[in-house]
């Protein structure tokens, strides 16, 4: 009886074929999945490209600002230096103008 029943089970569970066109439906799903994967990659590349452009723009702006600040600082230093030199020259001129006149050298002394 046991052997009979096991054989009955085998008969009842005989493998069956899927409906016609199964293979074509699988291949169609693979193609659609590949297309979706490709468009996903394209989307990611576009997003990455856009992000790179934005990043480059931010970096460029930052660089430009840093360079401008450096140029400003340099100009400030040069201005301070120029003012210092001018001040020194003015001091010299002022001292020259305000210096007390020296008595003329005495030629007869000690004669």
């Amino acid at each position, binding site marked *: *009886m*046991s052997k009979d*029943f*096991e054989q*009955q*089970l*085998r*008969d*009842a*569970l*005989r*493998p*069956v*074929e*899927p*409906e016609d066109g*199964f*293979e074509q*439906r*699988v*291949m169609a*799903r*693979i193609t659609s*999945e590949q297309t979706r994967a490709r468009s996903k990659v394209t989307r990611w590349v576009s997003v990455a490209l856009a992000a790179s452009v934005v990043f480059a723009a931010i970096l460029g702006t930052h660089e430009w600002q840093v360079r401008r600040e450096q140029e400003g600082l340099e100009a400030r230093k040069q201005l301070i230096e120029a003012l210092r030199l001018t001040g020194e020259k003015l001091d010299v001129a002022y001292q020259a103008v305000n210096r007390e006149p020296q008595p003329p050298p005495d030629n007869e002394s000690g004669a």
Partner: protein
Amino acid sequence: MKASDTWSADELLTRARAGESSAFAALVRRYQRAVYSIALRMLNDRHRAEDLAQEVFLQLHRALDGIESDTHLAFWLRKVAMNRAIDRMRQESRHGAEPLTEAEAAVDETAEDDPLLKRRIEELLAQLPPAARAVVVLRYQEDLDPLDIASTLDMPINTVKSHLKRSLTQLRARVQGTAIVEDIR
């Protein structure tokens, strides 16, 4: 019959791995019966079985590089089909038992088969818990021995044997019970 159907599974695998879609299609043709039957017997619904079988082949297409031989391929397909079916059954278990009508219509019936008995066995099989059902399907549909079933389902061999013994006892008792009731009528 296509030329690719005469190639060996190893040759088909090599060609499919190289991106030859006709080779992959031939692999699908060669194994669709086994994969679909597992899905059908586990889910008891033709549409869901077809969907699951398609997903198994999609997964195979992504995993081709990891398949080493035709033996490995057959093992891999059974394992993935079973795991996916069991996962789906567990997810859907709260919805109750699945209808049987569609599965019944898909069964090949020959003159010497008893369609009523087949129908009854499928009904009773659908009432078994997922793991027990998987063991019975692999044993009597795929003709695997308990060791191969244990390996396919990642289950201890003693658990496989106890599932088999218990399921057979239950199925036999219920089938005989049905026969007795029918005889009385």
